[in-house]
């Protein structure tokens, strides 16, 4: 059978999970944006067809 | 664009080329005896290592025999696949195979047949091995044989396909396992369950797992026949 946790520690798990999720997604986003700029810097502007 | 795979199947060269390929590979094995002298001892070694890892004095080895058997088969399969394509290359390039006039689907089937035959030999020896080493008394003979044949067909087909994918790469030795093992996990599950049913004299359930193995085999044979050519071109 499962272990039923006290309300206080349940909240700890919840916040930890949300923190991990936001951390992972935020970290990937930051890497993605930064990498995009880095590669974009090396390309002449005509190859970047999406910026307006 | 002509459907080369379908054309060759109609022309019958696919099977002829497959026979040629498997004949060549078997002749090669007969002369070099690599499977016999290296992969077979490896398979037996795995059985022994399992005994070191698990307590041989309790009944755990006997109870886990179905799973351990198929695990040993899977690990040996990786070596067999690598070997099947290593024979084609001097330094990682499968030019001869690609430039030959053979039908790619035929090459796929031939390679798969070669891998399958080697696996069957390994399985027979492993079966004797687990019976002797783990004390598992075999039951349900027909189910056991059917499971072995069907599982091996699936493993060989998937192996032939993924083998050619990895063959041309420098990292093939580390890449092939992670590509193959998730794919053949259903075969491990089904083979283990079927063997368990056979050993427990409850063959009824086991045959359903054989159905899964049959479906898996058909699927990968079909995928291989069509996908082998582009993969061979790129290897």
């Amino acid at each position, binding site marked *: 059978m499962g272990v039923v*946790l006290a309300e206080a520690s349940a909240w700890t798990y919840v916040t930890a999970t949300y923190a991990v999720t936001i951390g992972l997604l935020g970290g990937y986003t930051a890497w993605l944006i930064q990498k995009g700029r880095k590669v974009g810097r090396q390309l002449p502007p005509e190859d970047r067809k999406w910026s307006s | 664009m002509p459907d080369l795979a379908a054309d060759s199947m109609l022309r019958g060269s696919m099977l002829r080329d497959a026979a040629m390929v498997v004949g060549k590979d078997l002749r090669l094995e007969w002369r070099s005896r690599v499977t016999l002298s290296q992969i077979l001892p490896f398979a037996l070694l795995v059985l022994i290592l399992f005994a070191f890892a698990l307590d041989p004095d309790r009944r755990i080895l006997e109870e886990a025999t179905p799973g351990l058997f198929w695990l040993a088969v899977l690990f040996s399969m990786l070596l067999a696949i690598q070997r099947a394509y290593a024979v084609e290359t001097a330094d990682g390039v499968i030019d001869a195979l690609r430039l030959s006039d053979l039908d790619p689907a035929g090459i796929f089937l031939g390679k798969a047949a070669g891998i399958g035959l080697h696996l069957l030999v390994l399985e027979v020896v492993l079966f004797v091995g687990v019976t002797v080493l783990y004390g598992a008394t075999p039951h349900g003979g027909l189910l056991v044989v059917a499971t072995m044949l069907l599982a091996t067909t699936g493993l060989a087909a998937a192996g032939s396909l993924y083998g050619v994918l990895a063959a041309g*790469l420098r990292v093939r030795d580390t890449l092939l396992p992670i590509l193959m093992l998730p794919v053949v996990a259903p075969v491990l599950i089904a083979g283990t369950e079927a063997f368990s049913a056979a050993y427990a004299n409850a063959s009824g359930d086991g045959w359903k797992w054989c159905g899964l193995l049959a479906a898996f085999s058909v699927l990968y044979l079909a995928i291989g026949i069509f996908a082998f050519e582009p993969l061979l071109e790129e290897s």
Partner: protein
Amino acid sequence: MTSPSAGTGAGIMRLHPDGTASRGSRILGIVVLVSVVVFLYVALVASAPDKSLDAQGQLVRIMYLHVPSAIACYTAFFVTAVASGMYLWKKTVGWDALASSSAEIGVLFVALTLLTGSIWGHTTWGTWWEWDPRLTSTALMFVLYLGYLALRRAIIDPVSRAKQSAILGIIAFVNVPIVHYSVDWWRSLHQTATVASLDPKIDGLRLFALMFGMVVALLLYVWLMMHRFRLAFAEAALEAKGLDLALAERRAEARADGGSVPPSVTTGGAS
């Protein structure tokens, strides 16, 4: 284009000149950010304002992350499979970029699915892993697509890489239902005590939180895809340019040596 937390003076609608942002992605990004804030409020506060909640009631909040992550990863791998098929048909670099980008983001979401599922499991089962059928097949799917990414890293030639990973992208997705079915069947035979399911019965605002979470996850997937795709596309263009540059240097070398330039050394059309 950044979320304000990472902003370095870039305005709400001021796009970084070197980045992969556009008006469209900026607008979507703002929508995503707002949705995330709303979602967090609904998930963590509004969905269960009753203070006398038991532990189970609180823990379902983890589901609001787990289920949406799963939806996003399946969507991502489906897109990879379709884009792979389109690449094999059309042979343009865009489809390959789409396939690889979606696979990478898919792997991210699978990791999240496994993490959130494991944490939820720990709170209920007391252990970090219980071979629950869905989590187990998800774990296999994770390794499956790690293999896809590994294959891409192993092939240098862009066309060869695109072709082989396209075939793998389709086969991998075909494997997903096979693995699911086998693992499900397998676990259904061996389920001992009642293992609390990963599908809690919820309704009302809590169901809304779950549904809204799925919408947010998909929006986030699209936004990440826009940037990741553009990055892949830019890297492919850079690769082609690098090749052109190398070929041009080679031709210059050949001319300098006084020999004739072999006709094969021409600038290949950038894909």
